[in-house]
């Protein structure tokens, strides 16, 4: 049956040589290689659930009287965007399950991407010949965060409306072109521009997903062309790939991962509430709530905005750089430029321009690992500062004092992280290279091959 179906295809497009290569394609095994796959499968779930949601959502801020089943809102004048999102959540069977699964999938999509980036930089997988694919990956990370923000803004509830107001202010704060840029992007002032909602919708459901899908295809295509990296050990060398062939073992396991990711996301979507917009109510420019937090992947930007002292350079009486620029725009720009420049920084700093197919373990390269940990500590400290208002509300720890502590930690913690990580890596490496350094008797260290670290097969 399978043979006959394949013969039909093969006689028409000559697929056999390609399919044979595909089925015998070898995947090296390591748990950390699954992170990218988890991101990929979250994207699949996002597309599937997103199509369902797009059929019910109305991208319009035109006012309508809410008359759905949620009593506290009945009779209220709200935007159609908000009303349609509440309706698809509470009055469409299964709608809430799909919406919450979509929301959870977005959160986990970006968790997986961030961990994947962390894995790539820690193991030196971005080195020659993989720089192009690394840059594509960093671009997708940025797009995913932007896409998440766009999606979470669509319901026009109080929380997302506050987020959009902040985004509008951050856009406005761009030096020289800020006001023109924001007006261009929003179609006028926010709130109030009716052009804005169809634009945001088109960007979220069409433009960014298509770019992401295209980049994913290129990302995977380049991986297949170059093959995966692998860790040292066993039969692995710079010139080969050792692992499980695609068919049948790897394919089945990967399909298993797809369904496992989908299962976790659907269970989260069904059992754990996320973003109950009917409780927040619709956005009105004169309303806001204390302790409001966006989705997790925007926390670093909130932290950046919170920590910045009230610095607004002026010429005479005129503002040159409005304050939100520093935390909301300059900070993420520095983070992403550093990520893009990573292959160059690594090559220049370590003076290594060779091609690498074998990965470093974090300890193998203490300086790179220390820099990576310091950099992520820096971003994470700012991220944690984004939660100061919740800590204030829940723990009653004075807000002003917290902000000063975080301003200090943002500078000190990365330095501390750098030296701590470096010495841990060096110690681990020492132990491997000279396992018997504290043993004073006569010893002989046996290595399988000269240069191999001891204690690894």
């Amino acid at each position: 049956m399978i043979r006959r179906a394949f013969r039909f295809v093969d006689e028409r497009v000559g697929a056999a040589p390609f399919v044979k290569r595909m089925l015998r394609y070898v995947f090296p095994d390591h748990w950390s290689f699954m992170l990218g796959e988890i991101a990929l499968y979250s994207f699949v779930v996002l597309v599937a659930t997103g199509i369902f949601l797009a059929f019910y959502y109305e991208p319009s801020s035109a006012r309508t009287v809410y008359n759905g089943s949620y009593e506290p809102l009945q009779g209220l004048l709200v935007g159609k965007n908000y009303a349609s999102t509440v309706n698809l959540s509470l009055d469409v069977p299964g709608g809430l399950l799909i919406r919450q699964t979509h929301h959870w999938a977005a959160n986990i999509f970006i968790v997986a991407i961030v961990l994947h980036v962390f894995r790539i930089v820690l193991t030196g997988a971005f080195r020659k010949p993989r720089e192009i694919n690394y840059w594509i990956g960093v671009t997708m990370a940025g797009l995913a965060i932007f896409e998440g923000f766009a999606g979470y803004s669509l319901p026009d509830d109080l929380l997302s409306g506050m987020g959009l107001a902040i985004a509008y202010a951050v856009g406005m704060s761009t030096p020289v072109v800020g006001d023109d840029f924001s007006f261009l992007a929003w179609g006028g002032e926010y709130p109030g521009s009716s052009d804005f909602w169809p634009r945001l919708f088109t960007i979220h459901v069409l433009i960014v997903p298509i770019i992401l899908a295209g980049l994913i295809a290129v990302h995977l295509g380049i991986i297949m062309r170059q093959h995966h990296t692998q860790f040292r050990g066993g039969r692995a060398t710079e010139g080969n790939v050792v692992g499980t062939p695609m068919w049948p073992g790897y394919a089945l396991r990967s399909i298993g991962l797809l369904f496992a990711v989908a299962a976790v996301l659907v269970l989260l979507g069904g059992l754990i509430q996320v973003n109950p917009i009917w409780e927040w109510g619709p956005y009105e420019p004169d309303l806001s709530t204390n302790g409001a937090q966006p989705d997790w992947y925007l926390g670093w930007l909130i932290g950046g905005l919170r920590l910045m002292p009230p610095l607004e350079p002026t010429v005479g009486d005129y503002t040159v750089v409005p304050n939100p620029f520093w935390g909301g725009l300059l900070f993420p720009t520095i983070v992403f430029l550093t990520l893009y420049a990573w292959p160059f920084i690594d090559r220049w700093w370590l003076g290594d321009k060779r091609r690498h197919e074998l990965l470093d373990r974090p300890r193998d390269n203490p300086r790179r690992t220390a820099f990576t940990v310091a950099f992520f500590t820096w971003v994470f400290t700012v991220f944690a500062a984004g939660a100061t208002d919740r800590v204030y509300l829940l723990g009653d720890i004075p807000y002003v004092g917290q902000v000063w502590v975080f301003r200090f930690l943002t500078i000190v913690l990365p330095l501390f992280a750098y030296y701590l990580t470096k010495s841990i890596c060096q110690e681990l490496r020492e132990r491997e290279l000279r396992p018997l350094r504290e043993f004073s008797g006569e010893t002989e260290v046996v290595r399988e091959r000269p240069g191999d670290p001891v204690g690894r097969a």
Partner: protein
Amino acid sequence: MRRLAVWLILAWAWLFGRRGPEEEKREPGREGPAERVEFDVGATRRLENVVIFVLLLTAAAGVGFAVLYVAYPDTQLLGATLGGALAALALAAVVAGKRLVPQETAIEEREGFGDPDEREQVGELLTEAGEGVSRRGLLLGAAGTAGAGLGVALAFPLASLGPNVDDEVRRTPWRAGRRVVDSKGEPITADRIEPGMFLTGFPEGASRQELGASIVIVQVPLDELELPPERMAGAPEGIVAYSKICTHAACAVSMYRHPKYEPTAPRAALVCPCHYSTFDVAKGAEVIFGPAARPLPQLPLRVGARRELICAGGYSGQIGPSYPGVRKQ
């Protein structure tokens, strides 16, 4: 019905009747790009039964989801059944992939990239295009000009996405003589306000969907109020109104910190919940903490014949978030 039973028995026989292990006896080292180095055939009847059982569970949970969807679409139950179906399918696939099908380790030689000869040939093919063309620079320049011209043309539809900034950010719905109303549309009278409370006010009969619309109204004892002299008249009886939109990032400044015990507590201040910019209400809403760098602009008020609050002019500065070129005060 009987037919169905026959089919089920046949399916059962087909699924369970096959013997797994001895069927697979292929010799290792099949041709292909990857060389086989290990090959274990590990299927047992028991494992096969496990996988089949889990696959049937998937089907049962899937049918359960469909039934619930029609009969009782409760979000938790829907999530549990659909999630359960997917989880069971995942389990079946992983068990099959790791234990049932032959386990193989293979080695594939990597292909080197960047053959210098081929690269040279491509370079030749690319540069061949310029043979016999004498004014190459000029042609390339003309092509560049064409691109730039087309770029200019395409920039215009893009520029029409947004209206002109100049007037729109400065426009607010407040006019001298417009009464101040509360969220229900009732006029706010001076007697409703006392020190320690704050009210949100709107322009009567105007849209509230604009950043310039909402104001906060507080009362500060006259001997504590320190406004620029020309703005004192806009705060009758110490009743002072500020734009409710934070000058940092456009959130509504919706918290009022008012000390109960004068000597130890901090000064009365409006606080924005988004990034905790804090504005001193007695000193013209100047910033005392947080990232905002401009004070909240003041809206001058007067008290009308029936003690109602009436707008007495425009804001003292630009409302809403800063933009390049905005005036500091």
